């Protein structure tokens, strides 16, 4: 039985400055199985994978492959050892041909035999039913095909272990089916496959075994057949987290009568969210629930005009307005804390002070800079208010921990005194202490009359803070749940697709 195990990871720990990404995690992969690695964002899945493939060095723990203890120093070494990886962000070269992308960086020959390479590629593509020509430039292929080409490359290297990090997020049903067929084929050849995805149905379709991570810790390893979907969701979201500090939005939803602070009808954006209606009242906290990729972020981005708005009408405090650019939304009292803190939120090299005053400063206008004293006062005030841990106001924000960076962005928007604040995953990837602080803050803001839209991967958290949940799946709204008697199970049923209301009208 023991010989069946191809990869064994024991007691893996990994910390980054200020964040503990993995703590004492075990993972076991057997020959010829598809092993799903599950967990919400920040659970540590990608860190675990990167430790597996030698991108990160582990702080503690032991990795064995076929019984031999190994220690990869680079992705290249892992590749040579039979660990093939297909990353979520495609790491191929767009300007090379399909065949080249499959064979470059391998072998030692000084010259390329195009005929042979294209021949090999054709055979490989045909055997895997990938609709691409070897001589095609990669950038002319759809993302799905690119993804399959990356898989084909990994397959051709005859790996013992194949890691698929969210390979299906850009595939359509047909392509997913083909990918699964391929996975089963590889499985029968004895390859161990690690499969990361956010789509629950897919997990049950191909996986033999499921390992769940949460907050960088191992929740458990289960046989797929013995773990019902609803229980899996519960394990991922951490239901047993319990009654955190007794936070609860006790406020009844403010009377329907008043004019909504923000109201949109038929809003849609270039990011592909289907037209939806939305409204929020003064002092209300509502949220978009749904798994990653369900369109929850795209919806709020459409509200803030972060993506190009392609349709719909918007009313703020009853007045019809046009929001085409973020600055227009800001001037109407809307604040937006983006999901991607690094890419969209922080200005990494600038100081904490500059990051805090940025939004208010832009609203003030180009010709009215705050004095240094004023800026310092603002920064000091909010550093104290939100308990931001920073050596000084002049420290570059990139030197802060994730939780403190998030608080700085939050401070940026609080400083503008918004009427309506959108928080997209404000608690993602930060420690529990700060999470609770942020939740409390949201409720305090609501009491002061600020309307808040709160998005989180943790249903628990949303139930605590929101009085109304808009549930999304496949980029459209599939349900709206009121607070009264709302339980986690109800929400999870709708999210997991247990409930009625199909996506297409």
């Amino acid at each position: 039985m023991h010989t069946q195990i191809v990869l064994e990871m024991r007691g893996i720990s990994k910390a980054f400055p200020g964040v503990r990404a993995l703590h004492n995690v075990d993972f076991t992969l057997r020959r010829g199985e598809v092993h799903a690695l599950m967990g919400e964002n920040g659970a540590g899945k990608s860190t675990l994978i990167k430790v597996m493939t030698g991108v990160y060095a582990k702080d503690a723990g032991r990795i064995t492959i076929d019984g031999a203890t190994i220690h990869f120093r680079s992705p290249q070494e892992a590749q040579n050892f039979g660990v093939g990886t297909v990353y979520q962000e495609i790491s191929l070269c767009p300007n090379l041909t399909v065949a080249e992308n499959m064979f470059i960086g391998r072998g030692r020959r000084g010259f390329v035999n195009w005929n042979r390479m294209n021949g090999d590629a054709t055979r490989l593509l045909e055997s895997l039913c990938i609709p691409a020509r070897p001589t095609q430039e990669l950038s002319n292929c759809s993302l799905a095909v690119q993804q399959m080409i990356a898989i084909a490359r990994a397959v051709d290297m005859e790996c013992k272990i194949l890691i698929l990090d969210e390979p299906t997020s850009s595939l359509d049903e047909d392509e997913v089916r083909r990918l699964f067929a391929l996975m089963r084929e590889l499985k029968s050849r004895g390859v161990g496959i690690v499969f990361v995805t956010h789509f629950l149905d897919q997990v049950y379709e191909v996986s033999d075994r499921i390992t769940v991570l949460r907050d960088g810790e191992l929740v458990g390893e289960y046989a797929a057949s013995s773990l019902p979907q609803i229980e899996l969701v519960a394990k991922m979201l951490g239901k047993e987290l319990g009654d955190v500090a007794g936070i609860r939005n006790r406020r009844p939803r403010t009377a329907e009568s008043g004019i909504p602070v923000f109201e949109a009808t038929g809003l849609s954006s270039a990011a592909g969210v289907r037209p939806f209606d939305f409204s929020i009242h003064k002092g209300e906290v509502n949220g978009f629930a749904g798994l990653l990729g369900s369109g929850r972020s795209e919806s709020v981005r459409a509200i803030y005009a972060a993506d190009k708005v392609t349709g719909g009408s918007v009313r703020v405090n009853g007045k019809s307005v046009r929001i085409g650019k973020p600055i227009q939304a800001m001037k109407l009292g809307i604040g937006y804390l983006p999901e991607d803190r690094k890419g969209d939120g922080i200005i990494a090299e600038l100081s904490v002070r500059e990051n805090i005053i940025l939004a208010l400063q832009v609203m003030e206008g180009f010709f009215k800079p705050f004095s240094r004293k004023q800026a310092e006062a603002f920064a000091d005030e909010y550093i104290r208010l939100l308990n931001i841990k920073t050596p000084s106001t002049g420290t570059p924000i990139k030197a802060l921990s994730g939780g403190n960076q998030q608080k700085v962005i939050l401070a940026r928007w609080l400083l503008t005194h918004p009427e309506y604040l959108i928080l997209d995953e404000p608690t993602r990837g930060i420690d529990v202490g700060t999470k609770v602080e942020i939740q409390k803050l949201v409720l305090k803001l609501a009491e002061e009359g600020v309307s808040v839209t709160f998005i989180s991967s943790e249903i628990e958290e949303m139930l605590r803070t929101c009085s109304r949940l808009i549930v999304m799946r496949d980029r459209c709204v599939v349900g709206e749940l009121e607070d009264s008697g709302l339980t986690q199970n109800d929400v999870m049923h709708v999210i997991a697709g247990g409930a009625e209301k199909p996506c297409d009208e």
Partner: protein
Amino acid sequence: MRRVKATGFHLLLPLSVLAFLVVVNVIKGVDYFSLSVINGALYGNIPNILFGASELVVLAVGMTLVTSSSGGQDISVGVAGAITSSVFVAILLGADKITWWTIFAGFLAGCAVGVLIGAFNGSLVAVFKVQPMVATLILFTAGRSVAFLIDGKLSPILANDLTSRIGGVMPGVFIQTPILLTAVFIALIALLLKTTNLKLYAQSVGVNEKAARLNGIDPVAVKLLTFMLLGVCTAVAGFIAVCKAGRHDSVNLLKYIEMDAILAVAIGGNALGGGKFSVTGSIIGAYTIEVLNRTLLRLEVDTEAIKAVKAVFIIVLMVLASPVVRGYLANAVRRPRSGTQTGTVAEEAEDGWVSAPDAFRGREAP
């Protein structure tokens, strides 16, 4: 202590280079700082450096802004200076009589042309997403010929008292005019940075364009603005240069100054990839280049070899400032005292954030 270190660190490189050069000069002869008064104006090593570097300083300031917002460099500044000054000269020579007013009008016209040039380069960069160096290569190729066509002939001569006073000394003033003009220019730039959010906007766009947009900044407008400001800088530099020279040589005026301006930005401790910038650093960098040139002359390096020695100096400087070498040096320095410094930082992080979940769970467990 910490704050001083944080704000002053980026000037360490240019200042230490400058200090090194001054020390070399002093060792060569203590008369380095001596001043003399000729025809009622100050001369000597220091005034000569300030005088000689004036155009470079002006251009380095503009280049810093463009580098910050666009992450690339404008290689057409010398050429643009030649064009703006040719317009200035054309207006002066076209006037019946050269007065302060005609000079002022000519200068304004030069600035307007500079803004146009900046708008052209800037729109290629901001709207068409062309790399700055490629975009400005167009003007670099064609510009000197345009300047020649505006001149209409080879080297028109500015023979009058007023412009030679601008390029030399005003009667009754102690200091050469270009030095004063540069000082005024620096003061205006300081004022601009003080009274507007230019620095914050340009840096935000340069560091993270997406985030800047989500905070209401228009990246296209900011990039265009910095290119237009650089256009004005080329007009000022061209104005000073042509007044100094007394004639407009469309082929050689401000030749190769774009390279020095970019170098000044780099020596000033600014990243050529954009983002955070320090105008002070670039200004010091520009003066450093001038000091370097004059130091080599003073050390009696052959005029023929000056460029080679300068190149070696730059290469050594860049090697010392390169991320790889700096990382290596930092490691070498840190190792002996790692017990104290890094230890406390790690502790701080652990207290604050890493152990927080544990503390929380501990409470929850019972």
